């Protein structure tokens, strides 16, 4: 083969590999959409999105997804109450205070925390955190939202702190020096100059963290229970969207049945929620990059 044509061929093959990612996205949307449309032929979209009972596996079937959404939001909310303040504090400390030695010690620990498989966190939530919390709240059930929420928060903390730290480190040092020159303390500089300057980057990190929490599966599948319930009570068992998909996948639900399609409909909703959050996060990060370049 002529060298030039060979070069062309190679470039085409490389492009094809790169385009695979676009096909993956298209594949996800297609697979979810096909089954969701079939699902919506039998269940009205109004019932699906506004119904308050989710019992597709019972004889008396209801397809209101709100209990699953509420369960997801409750656990994610608890996780965010842990991950956001702690992650931001850790980031401020690492970016503005910590000497190099401390940073070298702490960063690998955070990486390990982020790398622990989620099924391990699930075990930890069920077997360690829940019994511990039950000593404080005796009315708490063995499956609940609080314990997986807290553990999920710890799991997401490294994501929040490392992305926020990146954002704060990108703030030009001239701003800090200006604040010091005006007599500000380190804390005043950090909280009133650096954090506001890095605000869109930090917000992007927060949103990405929410998206992670919403899509997290094994911790809630193990420690939150399998009872769809429209509640804000963190002490009782409930079910999240992801845990429902796992529950159905574990059983042997035949293809083509309405039960089988429910997991794609729930998956579609989950995909749209996380995809929307990711887009906002990307947009905010891009904007932040422009501000200081």
């Amino acid at each position: 083969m002529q060298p030039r044509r060979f070069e062309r061929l190679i470039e085409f093959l490389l492009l094809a590999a790169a385009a695979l990612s676009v096909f993956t996205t298209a594949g996800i949307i297609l697979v979810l959409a096909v089954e969701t449309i079939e699902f919506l032929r039998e269940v009205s979209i109004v019932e699906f999105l506004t119904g308050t009972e989710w019992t597709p596996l019972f004889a008396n079937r209801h397809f209101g997804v709100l209990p699953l959404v509420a369960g997801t939001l409750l656990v994610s909310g608890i996780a965010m109450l842990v991950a956001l303040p702690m992650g931001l504090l850790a980031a401020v400390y690492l970016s503005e205070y910590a000497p190099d030695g401390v940073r070298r010690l702490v960063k690998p620990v955070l990486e390990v925390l982020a790398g622990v498989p989620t099924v391990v966190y699930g075990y930890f939530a069920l077997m360690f955190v829940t019994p511990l919390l039950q000593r404080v709240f005796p009315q708490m059930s063995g499956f609940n939202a609080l314990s997986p929420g807290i553990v999920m928060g710890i799991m997401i903390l490294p994501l929040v702190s490392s992305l926020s730290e990146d954002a704060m480190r990108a703030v030009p040092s001239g701003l800090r020096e200006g604040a010091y020159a005006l007599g500000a303390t380190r804390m005043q500089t950090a909280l009133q100059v650096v954090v506001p300057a890095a605000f869109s980057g930090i917000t992007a990190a927060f949103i990405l963290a929410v998206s992670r929490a919403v899509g997290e599966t094994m911790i809630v599948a193990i420690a939150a229970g399998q009872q769809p319930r429209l509640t804000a009570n963190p002490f009782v068992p409930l079910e999240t969207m992801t845990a429902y998909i796992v529950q159905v996948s574990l059983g042997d639900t035949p293809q083509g049945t309405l039960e089988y399609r429910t997991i794609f409909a729930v998956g579609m909703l989950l995909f749209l929620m996380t995809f929307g959050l990711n887009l906002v996060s990307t947009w905010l990060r891009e904007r932040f990059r422009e501000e200081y370049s």
Partner: protein
Amino acid sequence: MKHRADLAFRVLAMATLVVALVTLGALIIDVMADGAHRLSWQFLTSLASRRPEDAGIYHALAGSIWVIVLTGLLALPLGVASAIYLEEYGTASRLARFIEINISNLAAVPSIIYGLLGLGLFVRTMNMGRSVLAGACTLALLALPVVILSTREALRTVPKSIREASYALGATKWQTIWYQVLPMAFPGILTGLILSLSRAIGETAPLITIGALTYIPFAPDSVWSPFTVLPIQIFNWVSRPQAAFKENAAAGILVLMGLLLAMNAAAVFLRDRFQRQGRS
């Protein structure tokens, strides 16, 4: 007064880090205390069993290794090819920019969604069934964004002068990449691959969704075999009410974490060697 607030803030921030550290410590100690006494040669070489004291992890460990090796074989060429295109060819084109945005969005899609994709595409449409191959294809798609990202970083560390010297000797673009750039970047690429596989090996949800079995009393013998993996076996044991199975779960976690540790150590070793080479 101002400085006292400053000190209080610093203490609070450090306390946060201590909480993170203590949690990690508690997790490790808890799992060790629950499961260490179950670890034995018998546990590593026995198959699943209804009796917790006879049950072992062999089939799941073998399944994990099958799936992860195949995932690596699929993700490495695809990931490297994508990265080469984005880094060396399509740097400024709109198409490349679109692909980039796509990849960064894919990286944040929940893993369970990949499981639904695998179920619809590989298991049903392509008729792979609930096989090792279907699991590996699913995990390869999941791992790709990370492999691409780390490969691009590795490619970027190759100095421009190397490329220019190669061009000056009359090499074509592909010859330059194949004979000069890739060999130099290879240790870095491999490090990234191992790290992304160490994430994939802990993935549970996508494999449950494609229908990997939770109770399977044999190890896979081909890419078409049904299979289970370590995290699914752990999940299966955690979900049982008997305390003895929970101890098995803890022992399984120790095996999984050991595997992760070994993979990460290999990655760090490669990275160190790579850095020393780069300097000399």
